[in-house]
């Protein structure tokens, strides 16, 4: 069997350094994506043109590949606007918008799962719409869809691997650089596979802890 880690060892810190880049993009997207998703799901409750706008946004980001969105934003649009964003900026913006589209759908499902009676009861007590959203709807919706949210975050961590397209040095990109330098493929692949796996197992355990915290049994 042809396995030899010794040429790889010196590149190990470099490979591990990719974790930071991957996490930065994933965390930014999780944070801004959640905010965008929350805002859109609440705004589209009112219906009308806002709802149509949100729907078009969701349709676009779910209906086209992430790779295409990234390429369009980073290579396509600068041709029209003249503004050339750094790979970091492009990655964070595209992932945030993409994740926002998915999150808004997840949260919409969560909001719809809350029975209308509670909202009516709050209205009957004279509670404002803002307090109904933040104290009645959101806490329960979040609890109901937390597993789906964690799923979205895990997907996000994995999908960041496409940023190597715009030469951002994430884990995946660093693998190709290392293998090109050492002519070894299996070893660096094994290492980055384990890195992704560990990251996502940690994330999924975090989700379990959150679920327990939010439950009211």
């Amino acid at each position, binding site marked *: 069997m042809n396995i030899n880690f010794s040429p790889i060892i010196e590149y190990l810190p470099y490979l591990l350094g990719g974790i930071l880049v991957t996490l930065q993009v994933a965390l930014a997207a999780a944070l801004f994506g959640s905010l965008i998703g929350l805002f859109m799901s609440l705004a589209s409750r009112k219906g009308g043109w806002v709802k149509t706008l949100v729907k078009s946004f969701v349709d676009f980001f779910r209906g086209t590949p992430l790779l295409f969105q990234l390429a369009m934003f980073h290579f396509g649009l600068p041709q029209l606007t003249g503004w050339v964003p750094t790979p970091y900026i492009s990655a964070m913006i595209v992932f945030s918008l993409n994740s926002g589209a998915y999150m808004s759908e997840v949260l919409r499902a969560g909001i719809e799962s809350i029975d209308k009676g509670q909202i009516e009861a709050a209205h*009957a007590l004279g509670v404002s719409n803002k307090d109904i959203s933040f104290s009645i709807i959101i806490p*329960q919706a979040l609890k109901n869809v937390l597993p789906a949210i964690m799923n979205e975050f895990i997907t996000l961590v994995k999908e960041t691997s496409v940023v190597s397209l715009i030469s951002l040095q994430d884990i995946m990109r660093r693998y190709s650089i290392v293998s090109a330098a050492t002519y070894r493929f299996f070893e660096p692949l094994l290492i980055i596979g384990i890195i992704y796996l560990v990251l996502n197992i940690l994330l999924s355990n975090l989700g379990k802890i959150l679920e327990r915290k939010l439950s009211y049994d």
Partner: protein
Amino acid sequence: MIKLENISKKFGDVTVLSNVNIEFLPEKTYAIIGSSGAGKSTLLRCINLLEKPTEGKVLVDGVDLIKEKTQLTKIRERIGMVFQSFNLFAHMRAIDNVAFALIKVKKMSKADAHAEAELQLNNVGLGHRLNNYPHQLSGGEKQRVAIARALAMHPQAMLFDEPTSALDPEMTQEVLKVIQKLNHVGMTNIIVTHEIKFAQEVADFIVYMNNAEILEVTETKTFFENPKTQRAKEFLSNMI
């Protein structure tokens, strides 16, 4: 204090309320009775505008609720409501269910709101259930929490939308006893109910509805001895 003028409500082609007029006098108890589908619940829900009438005016202390939208939450604060399906906030303990609107709407401090909530829950016999979540309570207990939640706001009027329809006979009795205690303590009570005997016991007036209309508003004693309309006579004879 509460006056409905020429209220009509249509859901698509279906007329649920047809030109209804009624005035509810302060501190009196009204029981709205009639067959299913007569429009009783819709009428009740028009009072605090959970249902917006297609036509007509809802006047509370002279304020036209449909026109003066900014007044709506202020007025709702003064009108308590109890629902058939309880509608407790599922993620809050009993005490927080009661304290929530006190904090958010009445802007009370957390400590004051909790003290008031505890008092109200004690009054409905649930002093031992303060820290339970709705799903840990029986149907009757849930409904009593819901009543405490509405009463904590010290409303001028209480609306009951079939408060016992989702309960078994025993729990029905425990809830009816609580409602009975609210009679003639300074509030207008408006109760949609199928419990005819209960209506007879507590109500000052019977509002008899049939087919999207109010057929009569009659003093309770008179209604049961000698209803004005033929339809009400038939309704009563079917009851007994």
